[in-house]
């Protein structure tokens, strides 16, 4: 079982955070759902995985509403996988970058709208915040045993890591000579890339992680110098790589590995660089939402996503190519595993979460608003 090295997320850390949260009384319907869990149903097997959800009821509900941070094709891909396995459950989704998505669900809930069954975020910070607000349905999946505790919520039952997204530097080989090619993170500050380098917008979870981790490594001036590069910022990695592949940008400072694989497969002349200091990584968090309109379908989805079957889907769908943290997951389609990369997670999740506002201000300021 390959371990994820240099993982700064310790069990103790999460437990500390988790206990702080449990001290806060849950809002609304959390109490009854706790009672539901107390009944300890025995899991049923559906297809090739276990579930505590009432599958018949889920199919009767017939619908699943999925909020996701992924781009359109990725989100459509995820629900397509679920729908293929459960054709009686129709799926619909809303996609928006993590920041905007979280914003949306919060304002809806504050206005009394509860339209969402499952939400996937690309940043631990809003996930924990949502848990804090009682937004997640407490549901213990029988598939949870295949996950290490650090890849589940604390306490378990709110959400889990459905995958990991990480990024290095990527450049267009036909626009960049081997001598010029960036090798370390400092190379993205090279003035020759001014106006020809891209990054993501502040709503992106991974961008927040990259900001935090590299800032920790190289000091706060690092990103201030990056601002001088006048980078082009976009919502999704597909946009970044679209431009990179066509040469509209020469380098992208946040070249996500899954996108690199995808575009390479399309024939784009791009090259991935994994700087020695590490690759910023963010967990992709899935959880069933409380007060969901289709609660059983939501639970079924969580189990499906957690299962080997679901994880295989996440790993092999070309619009996703996630790295799985399931203890018994096979390697990624390219043959590598998450453990083969030096991944950088935020060392101090509390500090990380608290610095959200600073990041937003600095990043938005860099981009002009």
């Amino acid at each position, binding site marked *: 079982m390959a371990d994820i090295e240099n993982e700064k997320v310790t069990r103790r850390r999460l437990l500390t955070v988790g206990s702080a949260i449990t001290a806060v009384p849950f809002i609304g319907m959390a109490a009854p759902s706790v009672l539901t869990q107390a009944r300890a149903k025995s899991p049923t097997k559906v297809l090739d995985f276990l579930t505590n959800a009432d599958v018949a009821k889920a199919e009767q509900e017939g619908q699943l*509403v999925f*909020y996701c941070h992924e*781009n*359109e*094709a990725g989100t*459509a891909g995820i629900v*397509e996988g679920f729908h293929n396995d459960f054709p009686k459950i129709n799926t*619909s*989704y*809303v*996609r*928006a*970058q*993590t*920041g*905007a998505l*979280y*914003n949306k669900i919060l*304002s*809806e809930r*504050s*206005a*009394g*709208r509860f*339209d969402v069954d499952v939400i996937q975020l690309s940043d631990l910070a809003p996930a924990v915040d949502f848990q804090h607000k009682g937004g997640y349905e407490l549901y213990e999946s029988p598939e949870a045993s295949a996950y290490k505790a650090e890849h589940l919520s604390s306490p378990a039952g709110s959400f889990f890591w459905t995958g990991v997204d990480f990024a290095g530097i990527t450049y267009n080989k036909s*626009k960049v000579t081997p001598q010029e090619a960036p090798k370390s993170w400092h190379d993205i500050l090279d003035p020759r890339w001014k106006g020809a380098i891209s990054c993501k*917008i*502040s*709503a992106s979870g991974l961008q927040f992680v990259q900001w935090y981790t590299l800032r920790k490594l190289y000091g706060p001036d690092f990103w201030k110098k990056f601002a001088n590069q006048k980078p*082009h*910022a*976009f*919502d*999704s990695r*597909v*946009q970044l790589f*679209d*431009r990179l*592949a*066509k*040469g*509209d*940008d020469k380098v992208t400072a946040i070249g996500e590995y899954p996108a690199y694989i995808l*575009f390479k497969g*399309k*024939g*784009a002349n791009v090259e991935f660089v994994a700087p020695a200091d590490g690759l910023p990584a963010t967990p992709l968090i899935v959880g069933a939402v409380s007060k969901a309109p289709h609660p059983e379908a939501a639970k079924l989805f969580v189990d499906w996503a957690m299962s080997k079957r679901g994880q295989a889907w996440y790993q092999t769908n070309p619009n996703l190519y996630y790295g799985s943290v399931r203890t018994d997951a096979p390697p990624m389609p390219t043959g590598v595993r998450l453990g083969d990369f030096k991944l950088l997670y935020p060392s101090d999740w509390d500090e990380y979460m608290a610095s959200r*506002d600073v990041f*937003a201000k600095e990043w*938005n300021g860099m*981009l*002009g*608003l």
Partner: protein
Amino acid sequence: MERHARPVTGSAVQSAGSLVSAQKMAGYGVAAVAAVLVVYPVFFLLQASLDVGDPQVRPPSAYGLDNFGGLFQFPQILLNTLTVSLAATVMALLFGFVMAWILSRTNVPGRRLFEQLMIMPYYLTPLLGALAWGLLGAPESGFINEIWRALGGRGYLIDINTAYGIAWVMALFEGSVAFVMIAAVMKSMDPAFEEASQIIGASRIRTMLRITLPLVAPGVLGAAIFVFAEMLGSFAVALVLGLPSRYYVVTTAIYQLVQQYPPKIQTAAAMGVSLFAVMFVMLFVYRRIVMAGSYVTITGKAFRPRVIDVGPLRLVLLGICVLYLFAAVALPLVTLLYASLQKIAVIFPAAENWTLDNFRTAMSMNAVRSALGNSLLLGFGTATIGVLLMGLLAWVIYRSRLPGSGLIEYVVMFPQAVPRLVFAFGLMWAWVVFPIPIYGTIWLLLIAYLTVFLPLGVRTIAGVMLQIDKSLEECAQMCGASWAFRMRTVTVPLLRPGLIAAWLLLFIASIRELGASILLMGPHSKVITPSIVESWFGTSSELTAALALIQTLVVALAIIVLIAVTRRIGAHPID
């Protein structure tokens, strides 16, 4: 022929104060609906702009003008907006004037055909134009620049992601309104003025400069102001072409502020209010210049302007018309098709770059399946309800003598001054707290469309209504017909062709709508144009091109079918 005196009986006598007729009820009812539609969201917009307290707290904890003060941090945005709008207005007027002159004053062949074709850029939408021209004019990967480099040029020929690039596309696609207005001005000029000049012996050039131009000038000036106001509120082109390089204009800045995390709602609201204040002033000036009856573009008599024989120049002018339509219609469509069939769109693709995958994926996306269906449904709903609502409003404002009809006109025309995006902002805020759960549903979009299309619909129907002689309705009155009876038997049948035209107009407008829809779409209420934008933000440009083409095709088919159907039930000639 018996004669019997028909005395005015006591029961028919009613005191003026308590007259509750069907007319008044319908009139005031419809006016109340319009007022709620328009005023309710504007109130929330204003409230948000004055909210200086904690953004999460609602209702606002503190009021103040700080948000407006904060706008001074963004002088660049204001400058960008002015630059783009001015450049676009100048270009649009140029296109509009040249095309209007060619098509109504010269003897270029195929004039009538071209006049019909001039509306095509409007159908295609500025969004599509922006997508296509983005593919054509991106400095590195744009097709035009790739051809330029292949021919030996260095660097790039055009950069569409600049102020002038944006203005160019705006002018091409939003400029047809300038054409319509200027053509109307030219048609309303009595050719006798020019003939008098020529009889006296002035040359053609002199006549054009001394007589034609000064006569046409006020109308053109009015068109200029109107077009400028429209450009200020333009959104789609600046979104697609400006956002990558973070070149913001006010509308895209508002969008960005609302969408980013954390959102700056109050600043966005303040920007929105400022923008609409400026547009309001512009439109006020416009109305003063063009004077009364300005919403009816062609009032009273339309003359047949004298056609000038331009001899061999005909071919050159024909070439200009063809060139315009090429740039605005043919080229974009071909470009999108070309891109949609490739994996990674380049101008000289290798054999393995060709694929139909983009179309396959597009067909399975939400954007095509549900968005198309929703858009068509919404188009139907908006057009049908809209015609009813706006027809009644047009009647209340221009035909009835209900007190306060002037105020109602004001309320109805109000959305003209507010950019759609800004209005949607207020709508978003207004209806999220509404006790009935319509937020995120297709009903909210319906309400939004009905609101923002009020000026368009009322103006169109009013134009037709005003051409109907008042005495036709008065005569029915004198024959003893009640208001409802004469509406049914006289007014509506006479209005029918106009109502049908308005229906089609509203249908098309609602399908191509972007600014309002993009903020109000929900998971179950996706519609076409915003979902193309979403695709552009979140998928490859090739996939987006495929998506855009599929949707354009389906909508075009729907419109052709509708036109054929309405021809059957609609027109009968009226003198």
